[in-house]
């Protein structure tokens, strides 16, 4: 179960700049290859998809496998064309989707 999504954007961005967008979410990222203490396999449960939209347009997408560490951290770059709102979504193997938004403040 994913929880506590965190987004880091610059406080203020200039139009034309390229900014770094940092995302972090709490999730166990269970690989499916481990066994519990009684020897029973622990089922896989990972965040398999992370998407980022800006102004309803998808700008970045990550398809993740079990080789990504627990509490997946992903950062990417973004060209600033104007103010707007980022919408991030994380989907895990159970189909649970967690959405977080973050506003980008822009000066001309």
């Amino acid at each position, binding site marked *: 179960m994913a929880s506590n999504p965190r987004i880091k954007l610059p406080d203020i961005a200039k139009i034309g700049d*390229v900014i770094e967008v*940092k995302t972090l979410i709490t999730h166990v990222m269970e*690989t499916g*290859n*481990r*066994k*519990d*203490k*009684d*020897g029973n396999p622990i089922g896989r449960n990972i965040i398999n998809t992370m998407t980022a939209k*800006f102004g309803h*347009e*998808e*700008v*970045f*997408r*990550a*398809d*993740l*496998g*079990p*080789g*990504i*560490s*627990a509490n*997946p*951290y*992903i*950062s*990417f*770059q*973004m*060209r600033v*064309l104007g103010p707007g709102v980022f919408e991030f979504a994380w989907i895990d193997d159970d189909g649970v989707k967690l959405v977080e938004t973050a506003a980008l403040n822009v000066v001309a």
Partner: protein
Amino acid sequence: MLKNFAKPGPKIDVIDRRCFVRSAASIAGLIAGFFSGYGPGVGIPSALAQSSDAMPFERTPHFKDAYAQLLAGATPTEGKIILELPEVAENGNLVPITIAIDSPMTPVEHVKAIHILASGNPVARVATFQLTPLNGIARIQSRMRLARSQDVVVVAQLSSGEMTVATMTVKVALGGCQT
């Protein structure tokens, strides 16, 4: 607690021990490598230290399949990806990775996708990142798991259809076992 401990644990013990042995071996290798830096006269035969350096890490059949599938017959270029990984990862459960590709990121010429493959993990495909010209710069960061010392291979797909690769060997002291 003690009772639990005394119970004959089935397979997991075997796997853990294997993991431990592998970790111990790689730590020994790292220590040998460390001392070899001081040159001859330290007491560790330099041939031993070198042989562990020169030994290529075995790539899983699973990795070879995934790699071939990604390239789909294309011959990849090299030298376009800047791949940042630690040479020695203390903890295989948390290995920071940074990938950057020099690209103008315009609608005409941009990086479409970046794939991370791990040649020694049970699941070779670690992640795929799909980029758009709106990203401005093709640079992503994440944190990955490495089950053992191995080559990390990054494949990038450019808008021209060109495939480009970069490979880096990471020695893992404590494996992210069973990733």
